[in-house]
């Protein structure tokens, strides 16, 4: 209970902190940039940042989103997979990534990424450029999933076997197991085991095995994946429940090809990738003053150099529909920890006027199942 209260306090603190960091103009047109592909669809739509969306590999059960231009609201993303069938007794690593090994035959289920489906909800009280004069409450729902995913299946089987062979050799001495077994909390057990690992005996017995595991910590990406997302938002024109509403709809499709650059390097601590994205999206925007709707379709691509925790990318997107134009943006991303990342971008947006893009944002995840 105490930890949940602390967690809530942390969320509130971070939210307040983030909302105070408005480093960009509060008047953001619909098409303006936020290339945060870690954002939830609901957030992207409400945040006026329709961009490409894909499903990150380290999705958590519950994620709270915000960026610098997210004022007075909150976005929450849930992953039902981790709340459904928690008592399943036939889980394994290969099944998790959609690979089945029967004897020497290895097959792959390209739809296994559907288990990463998330649903998201967002709320904001904000002013929209060229639409009404003051702040309005806007609500949004969204979902995203990995529609297709192809790993190098034999490499994944080999990976699992190599890691498991190291793990089976890690044998904890009975006196350590006994001590840990008697501890009342996981924190105490973890401390006992980690103290042993830091002792001379632990270093001699297990240290070398843990060192062997280091190269397997590099993140593994599918060769090809296709992610899809949808978001729908509603704005109450008069800030009353029975007042008229206007809506926004966004549909995103993102395909990613990944080429690993340092496949056999044992020295580097991360896998470096050259990524190529194909991005398609459809947006219907009713947040316009004259009662009409804005429709457009975007199609474009992005190249990205992913060097461990840093990523550099450039995207070019063409827009068709009753709004036309193109966008050309360079992005930098930095993963500070596995839960916190910074994103930034600079370039030209779709519109012909005021089309300078300069943005800075932060994203974090919170896991309530962290016992």
């Amino acid at each position, binding site marked *: 209970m105490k930890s949940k209260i602390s967690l809530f306090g942390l969320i509130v603190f971070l939210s307040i902190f983030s909302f105070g960091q408005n480093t960009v103009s509060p008047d953001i047109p619909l098409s303006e940039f936020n290339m945060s592909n870690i954002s939830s669809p609901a957030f992207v739509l409400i945040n006026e940042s329709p961009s490409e969306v894909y499903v990150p590999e380290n999705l958590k*059960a519950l994620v709270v989103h915000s960026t610098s231009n997210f004022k007075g609201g909150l976005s929450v993303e849930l992953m039902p997979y981790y709340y459904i069938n*928690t008592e*399943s007794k036939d889980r394994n*690593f290969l099944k998790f990534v959609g690979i089945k090994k029967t004897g020497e035959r290895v097959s792959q289920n390209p739809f296994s990424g559907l288990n990463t489906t998330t649903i998201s909800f967002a709320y904001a009280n904000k002013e929209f450029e060229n639409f009404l004069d003051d702040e309005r409450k806007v609500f949004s729902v969204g979902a995203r999933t990995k529609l297709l995913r192809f790993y190098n299946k034999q490499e994944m089987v080999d990976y699992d076997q190599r890691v498991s062979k190291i*793990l089976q050799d890690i044998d904890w001495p009975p006196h350590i197991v006994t001590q840990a077994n008697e501890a009342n909390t*996981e924190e105490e057990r973890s401390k006992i085991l980690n103290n042993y690992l830091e002792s001379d005996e632990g270093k001699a017995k297990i240290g070398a095995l843990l060192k062997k595991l280091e190269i397997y910590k590099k993140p593994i990406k599918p060769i090809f994946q296709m992610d899809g997302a949808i978001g729908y938002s509603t704005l109450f024109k008069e800030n009353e429940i029975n007042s008229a509403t206007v809506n926004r709809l966004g549909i995103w499709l993102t395909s990613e090809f990944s080429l690993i650059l340092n496949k056999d390097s044992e020295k580097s601590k991360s896998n470096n990738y050259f990524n190529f994205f194909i991005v398609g999206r459809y947006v219907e925007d009713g947040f316009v003053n004259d009662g009409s709707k804005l429709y457009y379709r975007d199609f474009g691509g992005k190249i990205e150099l992913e060097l461990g925790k840093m990523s550099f990318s450039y995207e070019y997107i063409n827009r068709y529909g009753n709004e036309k134009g193109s966008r050309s943006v360079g992005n930098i991303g930095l993963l500070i920890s*596995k839960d916190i990342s910074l994103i930034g971008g600079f370039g030209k947006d779709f519109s012909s006027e005021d089309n300078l893009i300069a943005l800075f944002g932060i994203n974090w995840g919170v896991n309530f*199942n962290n016992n």
Partner: protein
Amino acid sequence: MTLFQKLSIFLVNCNYYKLFKKLSMKIIKIPKGSDVKLQVNISSEASVGSNVSLDDVIIKRSTAYNFTKELGKIEDLDGKTVSGSSNFFVNIGDIDLIKTNTIVEYRFKFNEEEKKLTCEKTKLNGRMFVAFFIGKIEML
């Protein structure tokens, strides 16, 4: 670290070990004349490797999620300490969620009966967690 310090730590560890062993080690009581086997069932989205010890001697190492080890006649096992650990490594997915959904069951099977031991899961670091058990076999 001096020899005296090492000796002191060793003695403290020994005392702890004896104390814990005496106070709270799980007792697995099995009838006379039984053939005993240990069945391990693991359900996890992490890669796993396990080992089983009998009186500090490793008798089985396995990379499988489900495996069985014949322990032998209860007459030969009486009074012996059996322990097992399963080590998990996470590359894809969130370690906390995967650990929460991981199920590890150690079952002692004899005659038509079985005794199930549950394992506590412990996160070691951002990529690894461990599940283990320790118990003493006694003949009825």
